[in-house]
């Protein structure tokens, strides 16, 4: 399937010789080393491996959101040709959500329990677009519609715990899509879901891909039944 996409343009994401270290009790050790990858517009790349192999660490490093104990020891991350590792914290904040967004594994814990779904999405829109509160909220509802959230107006006004697992993951995807990012990282987007819902979410991710063009996804392998990825 990948052959269908013509990949003659420059990669939107390029990672060279990435090394991630974790600072444990007895010195530091590398969880990821000599990682090289590139993703062109419209392409999906899957990172596969068993738990603890460094998939999630790589994903977090791409957003410069590694936990305190971990750090990028060496290597380069280029987003749209810009050196992401060299940017100031301010620039990184401008890139997050706008150029590179992420779908997290556990939608229940990844969404703020005390804020309404619509507010959480609108907040991302307002961060990157000059627009009023109202416009941002309208954009949020629109994005929820895009991810086929049933009854998006009503759902936007609800809290995460009021939604089912599948709907939460749709909200999570809407959150990632809200600012039309160039790259989307999906860290095991369906492991927390039931099989019938998994199928729908994976279907949705491939649909959204054709709608908004470009993303990247890492995929689950921890369960025997699901070594599959949305290779659109």
């Amino acid at each position, binding site marked *: *399937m990948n052959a269908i996409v013509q990949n003659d343009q420059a990669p939107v994401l390029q990672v060279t010789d990435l090394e991630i270290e974790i600072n444990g009790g007895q010195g530091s050790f590398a969880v990821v080393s000599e990682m090289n990858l590139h993703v062109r517009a419209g392409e999906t790349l899957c990172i596969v491996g068993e*738990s603890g192999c460094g998939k999630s660490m790589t994903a977090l490093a791409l957003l410069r959101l590694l936990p305190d104990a971990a750090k990028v020891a060496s290597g380069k991350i280029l987003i749209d040709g810009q050196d992401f590792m060299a940017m100031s914290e301010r620039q990184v904040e401008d890139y997050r959500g706008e150029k590179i967004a992420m779908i997290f594994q556990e939608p229940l814990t990844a969404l703020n329990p005390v804020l309404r779904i619509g507010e959480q999405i609108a907040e991302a829109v307002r961060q990157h677009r000059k627009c009023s509160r109202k416009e941002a909220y309208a954009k949020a509802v629109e994005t929820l519609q895009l991810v086929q959230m049933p009854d998006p107006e009503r759902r936007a006004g609800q809290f995460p715990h009021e939604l*089912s697992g599948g709907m939460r993951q749709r909200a999570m995807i809407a959150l990632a899509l809200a600012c039309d990012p160039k790259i989307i990282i999906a860290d095991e987007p369906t492991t927390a879901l*039931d099989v019938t819902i998994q*199928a*729908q979410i994976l*279907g949705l991710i491939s649909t959204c891909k054709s709608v908004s063009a470009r993303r990247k996804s890492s995929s689950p392998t921890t*369960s025997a*039944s699901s*070594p599959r990825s949305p290779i659109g």
Partner: protein
Amino acid sequence: MQPDATPLLSVDNLEVHFPIRAGVLQRQVGAVKAVDGVSFSLNRGETLSLVGESGCGKSTTGLALMGLVKPTGGTVNFDGQEIRDFNRSALKSYRRRMQIVFQDPFSSLNPRQRVKDIIRAPLDIHKVGTKAERDDRVAELMQRVGLRPDQADNFAHQFSGGQRQRIGIARALALNPDVIVCDEPVSALDVSVQAQILNLLSDLQRDLGVSFLSISHDLGVVEFISHRVAVMYLGKIVEIAPKTLIFGHPTHPYTELLMRSAPSHDPRRRHQFSATNDDIPSATRKPSGCPFHTRCPLATEVCKTVEPALTARPEGQLVACHHR
């Protein structure tokens, strides 16, 4: 090995309802029908898998059979003996012959106990043999499940997930039970380790003739270990059939959805059949009629009002559907 045909365990119309209370006086205003009239039987040396998505009541069924959750209705017949009242004394002998292996190998072993004490506990509780005999039995069991006897003094946290699950299996085997309930025994493990544990389980079945009631949402695991499969949806069994039929010719629309949703490496097999509505009803607000009608592509008026009964089909499966 071929399972024996006389049922060892038969479950008839098992119900587990949890009350929902509200108001000033906390009166019961409804019930969560976690298990709502489940019937099946299990033969000697057979593996029956209960499959379904989270919240369908498969785990509750297992817990109810173990007496860990009190059933609100139904009967259980174990080797000719009827268990109606699930109180402690009635369960005592039954519990020697029926054991459970839990999903989570981390929380199923007491972190403050040594492995030998964990495996010995069933022998101590039922006062089997002398102290020396119990020690010998522990060593034998550890060997049986592939643990080294010199690990007996270690604590659970010193083991990997797979090894912990072996400890849990050894504990379940200690009293030579006839039936072991396996509640998602491998879902918390990495793929490569899953295979080892599944192989261990089938070796044990071959050598000891033990029956397994396996509870799983992972169709790969189910296909590997089952003789028969029961598909559950919202507290009810919608289809029971031999494994080959379930995987080859799923009859109930829900079974079909489940099979089609299962990840596959073949892109052509995907999304031929899909339910659009992911607002899955819960056991608290169960739909009228056929519980699956809100998501079923075949649903008609009759499905909304009349609940289909589990009836036999010519190929040998039992299905609860008006249209198939």
